[in-house]
């Protein structure tokens, strides 16, 4: 799950990155509005945490531009502006949620999950496909009711594939979800994770579309 964090306050940004990484998110951080807009142009993110009072370009402007392009990437505004007007303006500009600083980390986590759930058209907090059930809040994966122990990377690959059952994700797309910019990626890392996931969840749990990528079959 790849998150773009746009926050100009270094201290808050560093703390949030640590927390999000602990939750298994891949985080890229941008400290100003202009580079945030550029990053949103260049890469696909599963979620954007957006501060409003940014240097160079205001967060709202970045958000509006994103929506004008037809980009539906979920955006949660994280800001110190707590006026009712600001909240309304933020949500109407296309934000999926609005959180006021100082925020609670657990609440931010829950809201992120909720926004992601709705973005993928689900109501059930757990993702259930076939006999597999993945709970993003507890990060517990079960196969036919029995818990399965997964590494952080295995979990991330499975979560990405389970988000949209039937949709094929290429190796590069999966790598993008797993690693932020500047991370060293082993060339066969994804194959290794897929192999180990099949071993734990059954060989039919993840299918390969030769030359294209991987997918989880729709029921």
């Amino acid at each position: 799950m790849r998150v773009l964090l746009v926050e100009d306050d270094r201290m808050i940004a560093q703390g949030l990155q640590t927390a999000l990484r602990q939750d298994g998110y891949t985080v890229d951080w941008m400290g100003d509005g202009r580079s945030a807009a550029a990053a949103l142009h260049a890469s696909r993110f599963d979620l954007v945490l957006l501060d409003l009072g940014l240097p160079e370009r205001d967060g709202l402007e970045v958000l509006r531009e994103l929506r004008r392009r037809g980009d539906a990437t979920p955006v949660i505004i994280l800001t110190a502006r707590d006026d009712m007007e600001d909240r309304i303006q933020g949500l109407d500009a296309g934000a999926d949620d609005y959180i006021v600083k100082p925020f609670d980390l657990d609440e931010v986590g829950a809201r992120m999950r909720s926004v992601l759930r709705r973005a993928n058209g689900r109501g059930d907090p757990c993702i259930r496909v076939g006999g597999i059930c993945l709970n993003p809040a507890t990060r517990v994966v079960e196969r036919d009711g029995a818990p399965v122990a997964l590494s952080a990377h295995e979990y991330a690959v499975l979560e990405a594939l389970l988000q949209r059952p039937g949709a094929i994700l290429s190796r590069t797309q999966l790598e993008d979800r797993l690693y932020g910019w500047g991370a060293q990626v082993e060339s066969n890392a994804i194959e290794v994770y897929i192999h180990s996931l099949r071993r734990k969840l059954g060989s039919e749990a993840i299918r390969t579309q030769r030359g294209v990528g991987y997918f989880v079959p729709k029921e």
Partner: protein
Amino acid sequence: MTSIRARLLIALLSLVACASLLAGALTYRRVLAETSTLFDYQLRQMALSLRSQVSLAPRIELPPDQGDAEFVIQIWDLFGARVYLSRPGLPMINRAVLGYDNETLQGEVWRVYGLQTVDGVIQIAQPLRVRAALARTAALRVVIPLLLLLPLLGAAIAWVVRGSLMPLQRVAAEVQRRDAHSLAPIATVPMPLEIAPLIDALNRLLLRLQAAFATQQAFVADAAHELRSPLTAVRLQLQLLDRAPDQAARFQARAALGAAVERAIHLVEQLLTLARNEPRASDAELALVALDTCAADAIGDCHALAVARGIELSLDAQPGIMIHGDPDALRALVRNLVDNAVRYTPRGGAVRVRCSSTAEAALLEIIDSGPGIPAAERERAFDRFYRRASAPEEGSGLGLAIVKAIAERHGARVSLADAAGGGLHVSVNFPRRS
């Protein structure tokens, strides 16, 4: 408390009373003078008419006068024997005087006129009391109506004064309605010439108050908003500390928490410094302060930071430059400027502090080898919570606002310019008091 109404009432009524008494006194004197002339003339006329009678019938017995004692007539013959006394019962002057004279007899003053005739002397006397009584009556006739009018005058004055003071009461009621939330100017409906300046002054005061309240509210709002960031960082790190999976993460979170708390403390301290140096916020006595000592103290405060950042910090001060100031505030001024310079200057750079003095002013300069501030941003750089986009780290955004506030309190001028070798050159000019 004095009442204008009571004062006017008492003053005006006393004036009217005094004026009527004065009028009475003047009338009395004038009437007295006039009656004296008149009666003197009358005395002479009586004497002259008696002379003709007496000379025609020298021995005719005149009947004794039975009337009041207004006139007493005596006639003496050539030998000095009294031949006639009009009021025999009365003690009388036994002396013949020619012409006008005043005689005192048994405590009573008489006006006497004596006339020499062929047969002797005719003398007519009249008590002065009669004249005084006439004058008194005339005077009272003037004074009494005036005194009777006094209560009526008082009521009229009270009515006029009340009407005149009405606008003042209206203004008082208007002012009473004002509080911190409604400082609207008082309507300048046509007001008496004497009250208009009061309203003008009040309205100017209200406008100043309004501005001051607005500034204060903006400041509090800004402060609350700005405190959110460091507090968010504190809360975040605290939660990270709670959920740290291992010792290393815990150690890191604790260090970050410490930094976040320090940042919050720093912001609060800067806010306090700014609040203390707001215009007229403090009435601390300004004392004579040595500028070079202040600069040296402030440099001492920033020394550790400069060493940590590899910045060469130097002071070039003319000793004994004395200025009128608040030593703590001046130290904060220099500290903020040096702190800014040290933070914005890249590693290996230099920050120089100079104190110099001329006949007109004491000059404090801080020159760094950092990136400087573009001319277009220099004005805004003094706004509170203004941070440049390229700020190297989270500052309070208050440094230059504090510097400006302190400088203004000391009547000093702060200016930003390019340093000779690039970087920022801050000058604080303290004019000498004449």
